[in-house]
């Protein structure tokens, strides 16, 4: 018996693997205690299957007469006999059974992550809090109250911690490691990006006298959220990245489309015009100041649009109001 063979059994949720070196030429698997390997699964027969090594060293699985039978993972239909090829996995009830040969290749060693994510994460968290405080201070038109800044910073930090904790929990569940620091780094980077993006949009809208920007800027929030969630998923595990990207991207697209429709609908209903919500200091102005004639020429062009809108049906609950008056 020069060959080294291992049997590996993964129970239903694959939470742990049973691995055992095989030293006989025959093994029985089932729920009964007289088996060589006992499978703790109600969908497995008392004596479910037998593995046998033939002359050439190959293994064959035989169904011993179970209700649920013997299946090969990834293939349809039950089988009475399966010749085990390398990388072939048997499905027995909800359990997976695999054999490994001693000469099988294993993945290369992954170097330990020496660099801790914590310093970068903490710097980013500090920046997030700083930007939020600056934003609060920028909008401070009343008497500044110190406690507002303290509670604001604490609330933000708490929110960030809760978000990170949720992702760490997901990580722990599915990948075994919480990786709190790495998740914190991702969350802080995401929040920082958005908290810089939002005021920047506001300032650009003012500087270019382009209030329509505010109409689309909210989409950036969804994109930032999607990118952050993708980064979190990558931290959880770097497998199936393409699938994750597609799912996150699709969800973000759905969210943006839904909100765009809602906004368009509400604008049709409420007719809120697009004007700049917030001014900025005059020195931030980039767009050239026009001559009054040019400005009023622009204003004059609105007339055609207004005249066209005259004949449109008024939207929303005006119809209901008219019904009531009848």
């Amino acid at each position: 018996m020069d060959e080294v063979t291992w049997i590996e059994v993964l129970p239903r949720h694959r939470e742990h693997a049973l691995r055992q070196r095989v030293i006989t030429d025959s093994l029985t698997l089932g729920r009964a205690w007289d088996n060589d390997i006992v499978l703790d699964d109600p969908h497995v027969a008392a004596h479910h299957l037998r593995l046998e090594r033939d002359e050439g060293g190959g293994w064959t699985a035989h169904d011993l007469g179970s209700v649920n039978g013997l299946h090969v993972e990834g293939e349809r239909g039950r089988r009475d006999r399966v010749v085990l090829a390398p990388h072939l996995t048997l499905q027995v009830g909800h359990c997976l059974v695999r054999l490994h040969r001693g000469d099988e290749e294993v993945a290369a060693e992954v170097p330990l992550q020496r660099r801790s994510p914590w310093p970068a994460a903490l710097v980013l968290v500090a920046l997030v809090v700083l930007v939020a405080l600056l934003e609060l201070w920028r909008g401070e038109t009343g008497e500044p109250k110190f406690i507002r800044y303290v509670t604001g910073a604490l609330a933000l930090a708490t929110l960030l911690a809760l978000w990170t904790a949720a992702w760490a929990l997901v990580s722990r569940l599915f990948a075994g490691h919480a990786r709190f620091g790495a998740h914190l780094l991702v969350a802080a980077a995401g929040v920082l990006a958005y908290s810089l993006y939002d005021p920047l949009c506001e300032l650009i809208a003012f500087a270019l006298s382009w209030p329509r920007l505010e109409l689309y800027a909210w989409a950036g929030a969804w994109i930032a959220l999607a990118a952050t969630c993708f980064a979190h998923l990558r931290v959880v595990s770097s497998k199936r990245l393409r699938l994750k990207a597609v799912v996150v991207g699709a969800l973000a697209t759905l969210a943006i489309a839904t909100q765009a429709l809602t906004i368009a609908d509400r604008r049709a209903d409420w007719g809120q015009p697009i004007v700049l919500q917030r001014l900025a200091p005059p020195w931030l102005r980039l767009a050239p100041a026009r001559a009054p004639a040019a400005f009023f020429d622009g204003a004059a062009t609105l007339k055609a649009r207004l005249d066209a809108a005259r004949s449109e049906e008024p939207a929303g609950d005006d119809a209901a109001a008219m019904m009531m008056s009848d």
Partner: protein
Amino acid sequence: MDRAIRRRLLVPLLCAFQIGIASAQQEPAPRLQPQPQPPTQAAAAATPADAPVSAAAERVYAQVRPSLLQIRTLVAAAGRQSSIGSGFLVGADGLAVTNYHVVSQYALEPKTYRLEFKRPDGGEGALELLAIDIANDLAVVRVDGKDLPHLAFDPRAVDGELPRGERAYAMGNPLDLGFTIVEGTWNGLVERSYNERVHFTGAINPGMSGGPAVDTTGRVVGVNVAKRLDGELVSFLVPARKAAALVEHARSGPPIGIDAVREEIDRQLLEWQAGFYGALVAKGWRSTTFGPYLAPESEAPWFNCWAQTNAEKTPKPRAQIDGSTCSTSSALFVAEDIQSGSAQFSHAYVRSSELNAFQFATFVSQLPIYRSAGTTGAWQRKRLTRPECEERFVAASPTAPALHAIWCARAYRDFADLYDVALTLVTQDRDHEALVSRLVVQGIAYDNALALGRRFLEGVAWTK
């Protein structure tokens, strides 16, 4: 449903008092401030003269009552009244005068509503609409009948004016309680009003709109039209002259077709706004100084101006605001949800030594005068289109600051060529000082609005 109908019934009654409503719609809050009123006027009117006065009123009531009408607007399908007003006969042939706002529901939606009259003797019947005068809120209708009792106009009121203090009686059917006489005092034409209105000190209540105000001999001196909701006994009459003119017009011309009412209203509104805004431009502008800025204010006498300041606020505000708001009470009743023809301009001069440039800009953005930049008044989707806005930096001249200018306009759905327009300007030359100016005009032709807006914009300048 029951509640909806009841609400519906009350609203037109309240709307009858357009001046009160109009002042309630103004954006800043001049109404919150005590309005200087002549407090002694009411007392003078109420001076008891005992028996002779009462006898006079009894005589007037008996004389006028047969010529009174209650004018009811009914929902055609239900046959129930939707709003009520009053009117009075002015000819044996059945011609009668009332307010336009009493018949407005029928005039605008003749398929949905119909008009009926009720006479004090219980006679009832349908009414025919003959003529309207939007600017003076008048309508002439015809009652079927011959040799009907009717009232005459007081020549003193038609030709000129009665002396202030003259006793007058407002008559009508308030709140559907029955035909009533209200004693009051003639206080002459309202000063600084573009539309001629007589200030009548007496209680005019919902349902009396369109009824006559008569002198002690029972001749018509005016038509009950409105009252101020923020005062006591401050009521208004349309001068008899205007009513006499419209009756003359109705007698001489063909009756207005009910399908042509909208076009007629449109035509009258256009004509009115051309006159009003033409006069406004002709009166010229003066400059008022706000810190380093000059702000344009109209020289026209029919603006009512109020100043606002936040200097007395506690805790002490971190930016000082000094502002003024001037508005006309020239709003015209078109429908219960359309008021046209009012104009308003306001300025707010803001300065701060405590706020930094960003905080100051935020402070300015939070001012009501800036927050309302995108609106041109109450939002009536049924009556007005969605606003369209143009927003740019504008520099009028080297002697004027650069401005952040926002022009928003809406079109009246029912009337071609009429718009509501608001122009909001914020000076862009200093970090800690700014003048925010706003012009709002309702029911204006687009070209007039452009010209007025341009004049307003070019009126914002530096003092030196």
